[in-house]
């Protein structure tokens, strides 16, 4: 029996639930997270799942943080172990002094009992067998039963849970009753047998009322809808698939002709990613806002078409929801391993605009911006997200829309414009920004031109002449230079309001943001002078170089083995790679603040000693 603690921790702890995938635990886990969120408490949920449909271990990690930190926790105070196959791992995962709650229908082997943690058993399986009929119902309701036990142990508001169950099963009375029964089974057992609550517990707050719980793929899909995208082409690949599925769902709601129910969008499931990229480019060429979503293996296949789109100057938006590589890698684990390949994807001299959203909120706003940039610069634009952002529910501010927004279609000459000019030359830059005007097929007899991936001059005519070729490719370089001033600049978190640089400069991007923010707070609280710059786009804005130069010691925090962002920064700014120290984490799980702090402190210690090495450490295993 746990001893009542006099120093109870309120709204600042983490727990995780180990189950078997395909048993319906996902809905119980989101119920838990949503209930905490509705109690007004900042909450994060990370799904650690297998590339499998049914029968393999899966974990769900929930962190509550009164301070609003949303990064993945490195330590958990409570593990709910419901999968006998992973009992050993789960027991080991509890932090010293923490708790293990397991299904005592299947007793814990004596060898698994661990000193220094408190083990609680509740016979969820047995109770459900006694209370419900049929295997399916018993399996599903076992999940609701553990949610009930947690409600007692950490004081989740039962009224909130009740309200959520009623919303979910409003039309299925029998299911509603069964769910209530199951919730009470777990709740009452915990209350009767254990001293509730545990030394860490929840207490209502008012910190989430302007927030939502949303995954990045849904947010990105919503961005595509709001940007006015009409053509989507894709090939299913984890972890990007849910983006296109969400797009379809939103379109079925918002894009049907009211009278005929016909669709104001065309979604094509392509035969592979090569074809998907070609369809996006074909549609962009014809004047639609078009996009795809994919992951690293798809990016590799799209490389040929991306080179064509770059050179023929055709807009298109490519969402890359990164997963681990190389090759097939671990499809259900996260990473930032596509940075270098995307920056210069395809053969020949190519360079691409890429945006790096840090969370679902930015997947929406940067998603919309990607379509504007693609059309303005007539080139492929990548939105580089990852599995953690894309597939996990994040707490973020509710999305807002400005109805004054109108798409930036870029330089497009219509029939009337063409009447006013002598001759249309597709690749002729009239104003020096590197962007030439285009025409859309079918618009006017005066607008026709021949789009070709082979050598072409400024009139779009075939050429093998050096000077004519150089004129075009050098203008393309100028165009991307113009883009570096137009893409979203870095987000700066400076320690000193007067602008004087701190001793330490941290540089990061994308999904690392939450962990880095928290790490920066901790480093500052320990007396370090830290500035943080979050890179939001490529090609790099000039201010990115300024930040690096202003800091004596720079740390580049990213999730890949080779320090790809650091390499890109060195290539593009000309600053020596050794001027920046890598803090790397690439084992496939979302970054933690502890990892950031350790990496920076390791670097700080090394900086004072002659042997200077990048801050790497073995990535944590799944069970730690």
């Amino acid at each position, binding site marked *: 029996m746990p001893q009542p603690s006099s120093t109870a921790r309120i709204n600042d702890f983490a727990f995780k639930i180990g189950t078997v995938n395909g048993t319906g635990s996902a809905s119980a886990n989101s119920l838990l997270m949503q209930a905490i969120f509705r109690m007004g408490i900042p909450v994060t949920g990370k799904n650690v799942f297998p590339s499998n449909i049914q029968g393999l271990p899966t974990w769900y990690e929930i962190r509550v943080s009164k301070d609003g930190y949303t990064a993945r926790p490195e330590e958990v105070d409570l593990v709910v172990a419901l999968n006998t196959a992973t009992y050993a791992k789960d027991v080991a995962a509890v932090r010293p002094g923490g708790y293990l709650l397991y299904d005592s229908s299947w007793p814990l082997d004596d060898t698994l009992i661990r000193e220094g943690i408190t083990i609680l058993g509740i016979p969820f399986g047995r109770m459900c067998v006694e209370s419900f009929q049929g295997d399916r119902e018993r399996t599903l309701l076992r999940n609701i039963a553990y949610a009930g036990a947690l409600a007692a142990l950490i004081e989740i508001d039962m009224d909130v849970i009740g309200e959520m169950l009623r919303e979910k099963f409003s039309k299925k009375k029998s299911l509603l009753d069964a769910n209530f029964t199951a919730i009470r089974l777990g709740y009452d057992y915990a209350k009767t047998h254990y001293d509730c609550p545990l030394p860490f517990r929840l207490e209502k707050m008012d910190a989430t009322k302007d927030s939502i719980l949303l995954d990045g793929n849904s947010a990105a899909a919503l961005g595509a809808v709001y940007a006015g995208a009409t053509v989507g082409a894709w090939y299913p690949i984890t972890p990007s698939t849910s983006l296109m599925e969400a797009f379809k769902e939103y379109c079925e709601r918002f894009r049907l002709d009211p009278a005929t129910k*016909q669709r104001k969008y065309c979604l094509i499931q392509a035969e592979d990613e090569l074809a998907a990229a070609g369809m996006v480019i074909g549609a962009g060429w014809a004047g639609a806002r078009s996009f795809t979503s994919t992951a690293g293996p798809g990016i590799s296949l799209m490389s040929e078409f991306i080179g064509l789109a770059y050179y023929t100057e055709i807009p298109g938006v490519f969402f890359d929801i990164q997963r681990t590589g190389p090759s097939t890698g671990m499809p259900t684990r996260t990473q930032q391993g596509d940075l270098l390949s995307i920056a210069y994807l395809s053969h020949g001299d190519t360079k691409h605009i890429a945006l790096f959203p840090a969370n679902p909120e930015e997947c929406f706003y940067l998603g919309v911006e990607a379509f504007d940039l693609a059309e303005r610069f007539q080139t492929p634009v990548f939105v580089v997200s990852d599995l953690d952002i894309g597939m996990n529910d994040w707490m973020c501010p509710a999305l807002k829309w400005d109805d004054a927004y109108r798409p930036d279609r870029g330089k497009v000459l219509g029939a009337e414009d063409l009447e006013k000019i002598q001759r249309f030359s597709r690749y002729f830059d009239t104003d020096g920004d590197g962007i030439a005007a285009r*025409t859309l097929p079918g618009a006017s007899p005066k*607008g*026709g031109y021949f789009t070709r991936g082979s050598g072409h001059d400024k009139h779009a005519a075939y050429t093998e002449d050096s000077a004519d070729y150089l004129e075009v490719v050098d203008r393309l370089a100028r165009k991307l230079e113009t883009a570096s001033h137009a893409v979203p600049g870095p987000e700066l978190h400076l320690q000193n309001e007067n602008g004087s640089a701190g001793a330490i400069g941290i540089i990061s991007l994308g999904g690392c943001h939450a962990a880095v923010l928290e790490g920066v707070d901790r480093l500052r609280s320990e007396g370090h002078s830290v500035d943080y710059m979050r890179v939001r786009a490529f090609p790099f804005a000039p201010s990115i170089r300024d930040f690096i130069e202003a800091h004596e010691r720079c740390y580049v925090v990213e999730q890949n083995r080779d320090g790809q962002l650091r390499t890109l920064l060195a290539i593009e700014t000309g600053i020596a790679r050794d001027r920046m120290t890598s803090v790397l984490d690439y084992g496939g799980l979302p970054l933690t603040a502890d990892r950031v702090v350790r990496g920076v402190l390791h670097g700080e210690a090394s900086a004072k000693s002659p042997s200077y090495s990048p801050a790497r450490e073995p990535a944590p295993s799944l069970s730690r």
Partner: protein
Amino acid sequence: MTSITKPPVRHPSLPKNALGLTKREYEGAMSTLCAGCGHDSVTAALVHALWELDLPPHRAAKMSGIGCSSKTTAYFLRQSHGFNGVHGRMPALATGANAANKSLAYIGISGDGDSLSIGLGQLCHAIRRNVNMLYVLENNGVYGLTKGQFSASADVGSKSKRGEPNVQPPIDPVLLALSLGATFVARSFSGDKSQLVPILKAAMRHTGFAIIDVISPCVSFNDHETSTKSYRYTRNHYHDVAPVDFVPLRREISAEVPDNSVVSVTMHDGSSVRFRKVDENYNPRDRDAAYAYVRARQGMGEVVTGLLYIDESAADMHGVSGTVDRPLVEIPYEELCPGSGALAELMTEYR
């Protein structure tokens, strides 16, 4: 190369079509293919067919991949947008463009290398989607631009210019298309303009994917004694099973004498295609029979030509997708964006 432009000579007596345009206005840049190339005859037939169809040139989109055949999109319809993409990937570009703007006439030109090797997958899936487009496969059994390698359509035993026999079985685009559910399948010969022009016209009017396999001999690398894609071989083994006449909607057809050997198929726009049946047993609306017939004749060493199969009842990609009648590119942004109110309402569902 394809930048050579033709002098804009207009002969005053040249006939004009309903748009007041002469055939010259359906031409493009000067061909840079070898003299006598079958592909140039296909281009000429296409120019003629499009002119006769009164197609406004700028309302067409010319799509192609890479190869000798793919270069020919520069040689007709100079006022149209053209897209010479990457090798074997024209179907994807055409599919995307068609998804965006279905009001244009999509003319895809490909070859046997582009379609049957590197681009086989894309061809198959464009057929399955029934993308509304003309797909001309200029088939010479050989890679011309890279100077004479066998393609996937080369027949077993057919010899290369250097005398090596091909030993791998060929892919027959007609049999492939029939088995994949293509809704318009034809075969013709670049040397028979009288057959090719009406087939091209019918294909242009077909709503759906219209594939024409055109035997188009390569004079530089595959027009010799032992080649089965040569002018001589094709002429000697040519079997016109279903000669076609294309009848546009506006033309009076009452003068026609009823004839039991004629099959008439009404197209979506009301025009019709009529077949003269050379072989009593041939039915161009029976997919299995068409397949069996082509196979049987192949066994006799014959190249069966004509409009071999047509199905005007199948929905094209847009029909299957249930998209609006308007081309998607013409829908104003205001109709596409749900607005701030809808977003605010949606947000309440994520709490």
